[in-house]
């Protein structure tokens, strides 16, 4: 069956090396240099964003600072400043909203824009792209650049914006899509996960063209049920509309991760961190009137290589909360036995606590608030007004003391997650 040709005009706007260029905007001495963003006073810090001169030398996301220094002795590290990035993100979104109300915030530095109606009426997609670039430079700063992809769907728009980085504009017309898709390594295509890439690579298939040339039976033999979806994807089809974040379904999962400045083997320290992260999750649940009954806690050892953040050295366990809850105490109580029972072979660098299967209970509005939930609402309100964790339980007070030791007062400011 022949599928219809997509006829929308979608832009994918991607801020290039966003955290790094934000720091270059703030400090002109960093511009044009090999630099990155991370934890400045820690040699083993993973780099969270690298400038293009650093990327060209092979320094990228999750390279350790000491490794980056060995590659390029002139490499400089700027301290991560979430407040700066959050404010610039808001400016970025406000600029894009001037062009179309159909905007999907994909991450802190990426967004999709559906400009179909605009291009129908009067304006060319290229003209809009140039104007968006101009406004980003004018309102956010000359050091901050973006790449824009123009295409008839989100998948091709994302591939287009990746094509000419930094600071480019690329249009992929429907009839030209295979020129761009075919040479791509499988793992570089949006929508193809690590498992699929692994299975395909194991079968000797490395590019999109190789997948396209496979018969349905051969594809099914490798990846079973996912094959029909993959077939559409490698043919350039994507039917997802640009969905504004207001129209989006509430989040189905959430997590908090904490990277320790000094790796630890202290169970007491891990308990304290798990408690704090459980409280953070509970605050987010209450903010969105959500509850959860399942979650997980995971750990990562300190001696990780460049890419191991995403693969090995992770371990942990899922837990059940027994009932739908938005209580930080209950989340922590489910984590505690896992921490106690976990045998630590090395020091822990990173701890993650997450919740999934989130739901908004139907009867929530009919429930009479308990004394405990009224207290939590009051604490949330006070913390929203005077700064997060101004009121906290005594058992995580020392975490607060450590934070203030490590960071300036600005890091104690309220910093909400970037996506609503």
């Amino acid at each position, binding site marked *: 069956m022949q599928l219809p040709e997509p006829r929308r005009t979608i832009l994918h706007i991607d801020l290039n090396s966003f955290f790094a260029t*934000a720091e270059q*905007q*703030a*400090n*002109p*001495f960093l511009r044009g240099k090999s630099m990155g963003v991370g934890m*400045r006073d820690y040699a083993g810090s993973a780099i969270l964003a690298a400038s293009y001169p650093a990327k060209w030398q092979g320094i990228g996301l999750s390279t350790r600072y000491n490794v980056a220094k060995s590659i390029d002795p002139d490499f*400089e590290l700027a*301290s991560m400043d979430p*407040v*700066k990035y*959050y*404010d*610039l993100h808001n400016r970025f979104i406000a600029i894009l909203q001037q062009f179309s109300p159909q905007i999907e915030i994909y991450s802190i530095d990426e967004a999709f824009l559906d400009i179909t109606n605009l291009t129908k009426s009067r304006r060319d997609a290229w003209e809009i792209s140039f104007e968006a670039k101009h406004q980003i430079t004018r309102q956010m*700063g000359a050091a901050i650049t973006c790449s824009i992809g123009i295409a008839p769907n989100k998948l091709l728009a994302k591939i287009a914006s990746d094509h000419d980085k930094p600071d480019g504009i690329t249009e992929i017309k429907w009839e030209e899509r295979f020129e761009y898709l075919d040479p791509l390594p499988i793992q570089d295509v949006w929508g193809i996960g690590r498992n699929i890439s692994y299975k395909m690579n194991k079968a000797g298939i490395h590019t999109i063209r190789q997948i396209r040339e496979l018969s349905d039976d051969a594809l099914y033999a490798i990846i079973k049920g996912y094959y029909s979806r993959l077939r559409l994807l490698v043919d350039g089809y994507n039917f997802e509309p640009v969905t504004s974040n207001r129209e989006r379904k509430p989040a189905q999962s959430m997590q908090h991760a904490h990277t320790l400045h000094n790796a630890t083997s202290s169970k007491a320290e891990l308990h304290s961190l798990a408690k704090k992260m459980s409280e953070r999750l509970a605050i987010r649940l209450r903010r969105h009137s959500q509850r959860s009954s399942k979650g997980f806690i995971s750990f990562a050892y300190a001696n990780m290589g460049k890419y191991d953040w995403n693969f090995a050295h992770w371990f942990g366990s899922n837990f059940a909360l027994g009932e739908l809850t938005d209580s930080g105490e209950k989340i922590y109580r489910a984590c505690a036995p896992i921490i106690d029972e976990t045998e630590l072979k090395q020091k822990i660098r990173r701890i993650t606590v997450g919740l999934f299967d989130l739901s908004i209970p139907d009867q929530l509005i009919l429930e009479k608030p308990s004394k405990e939930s009224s207290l939590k609402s009051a604490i949330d309100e006070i913390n*929203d*007004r*005077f*700064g997060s964790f*101004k009121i906290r339980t005594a058992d995580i007070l020392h975490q607060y003391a450590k934070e203030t030791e490590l960071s*300036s*007062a*600005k890091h*104690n*400011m*309220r910093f909400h997650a970037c996506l609503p």
Partner: protein
Amino acid sequence: MKRYEKVHEPVNVVVVYKAGKTRIEGFKWQNELYRISRNNLLTKAQKGSVPIYLFSVSNDKGAYQLRFETDTLDWFLEEIIWED
């Protein structure tokens, strides 16, 4: 060689408000006047419910971050990155 210094000390600041824009001309810290040649980035943030503004500025000696508190109208020098 760069030197990084976290400061967070009150400072006196010379500011020009013109055509809806705020431009920092200089500040005085530890009895020394620092003239500013570039205003690079203005960031708005929240301290609880109080808006604060962070100005990233620079001259040929280094880059500085200044903080303006809207509830007290106080200015602070937050950090310096010296370019030696």
